[in-house]
């Protein structure tokens, strides 16, 4: 799903890192949808905030998420 194949320092992603980034991107895509029921919309945002930590900790992304309400 994601086009990135390297981390922020330009190192190739491991298979595990690629999976993490895919999950993160999938959550972003879900969070962008405006027709989710509240139970989904809010839990997706919680999950996205958690995945931001994991992917940021591993230097896979560094961005802000306020446009998603996160």
């Amino acid at each position, binding site marked *: 799903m994601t086009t990135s194949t390297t981390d922020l320092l330009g190192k190739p992603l491991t298979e595990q890192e690629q999976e993490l980034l895919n999950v993160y991107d999938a959550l972003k895509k879900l969070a962008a949808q405006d027709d989710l029921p509240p139970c989904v919309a809010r839990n997706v945002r919680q999950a996205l905030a*958690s995945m931001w*930590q994991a992917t940021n900790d591993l*230097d896979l992304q*560094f961005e*802000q998420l306020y446009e998603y309400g996160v």
Partner: protein
Amino acid sequence: MAYSEYWNPKNETMPREELQALQLLKLRRMCDWAYAKSPFHRRKFDAAGFHPEQLKTLDDLRRIPFMTREEWMESIFNTPMFGDITTTDHNHAIRYHLTSGTSGRTPIRVLDGTKDWDWIAEMWCYGLWGFGVRPEDSVYFAFGYGSFIGFWGAHYCCEKIGALVIPGGAQTTEARVKQIVEMGVTTVCSTPTYALTMWQKARELGIDLAKDSKVNKLICSGEPAGSIPAVKRQLEEAWGAKCGDTAGMTELGTIMIFECSHQPGGTHIIEDNYIEEVLDPATGEPVGYGELGERVVTSFGRGFIPAIRYRTKDMVMKVPASTCSCGRTWDIYDGGIRGRWDDMKLIRGTNVYPRAVESIVREYPAIDEFQIYIWRKDTLTDEITIKVEIKPGFESQWETLQRDLAKDLANAHEGLRFNIERVDYGVLPHFELKAKRLVDARPVAQYNQ
């Protein structure tokens, strides 16, 4: 189960050249974000002739203007309630906290979004995991759970780690001590002062915490004492536990330094999430390893309110990561936060600025002269007493004044208890020039022990 010693092995042991490359990349992005979204930062950058594109190397950091608490407060004063420093719609916030201001009643108010609030817990995870907290631990928070940010982040960190969290809010010291013993708590989070208070209360109850409790880790924050060797020794003996120091700021939302389980006599800087400069407070020039200077922090966490080159006035001494045997490549503040370069005082975890106290005291026309007297009760608890002289003819106002002044000061300082004491007229020094109304009678910390 065998756990990694590090919360984030990749970054905690990253070679420093890579760490610095990561810091530069995050710095550029955070400055881009602040310039685009925060009128406060855009105004400051423009006034200094700085643009984020100028950041080519980490040395270019010095092109960025300093950010001060006074500027932030002015922004809050001019654009209530949060100033024009915020970068996004306030509806995105899920959390509000505050810290006492440098003058008057206006506090520094902060907001966090969902991602920021989770990041705040994440920084505590680096620290608490690094000190040895694991899913098997039961962690007790001797903390008031109010608007003061205190251990809020640590609470959520421990849930994230998978430990059993026992919130000890709104309880007496006796109830807390009993709960710690009854619940088989293994880790206690507290200010160093309050950890000593709990120990004293336990003794009164006939409880020997070192023998009767299962506590093996004491996590201190909110005061420098957690890294003062004499206090640390006293705490470790009293509790029969290892004592680890951490330090954070409401302005950042969380901790930026922590002591690891190897206890190197200082605190590692979380360098993948912060740039911590140590500068000569007079010239603003960097000082080397082993020299005292002022901490200036840039955070890569809270995007809601960017803190970029924020002058903390904290006194620190940086030493290389290799000073510690833990294997982290993150530099260390030897002795943690050693003190202040300004007149701010830390009383039971709350910031107190003498000029803020004065501005409130001066709202009472019945007061002629006053003195801020800071002292240590029973060698354990820091106390702040405002000694006041009542103007002749206003004596009948004393009782009301005593009650109202204590309430006003507490309201402006996160509920901190102020003792208000009346002294006879003429007892306090009266000044014509350079008034010195602060007396700090606490023992001076010794680091070289």
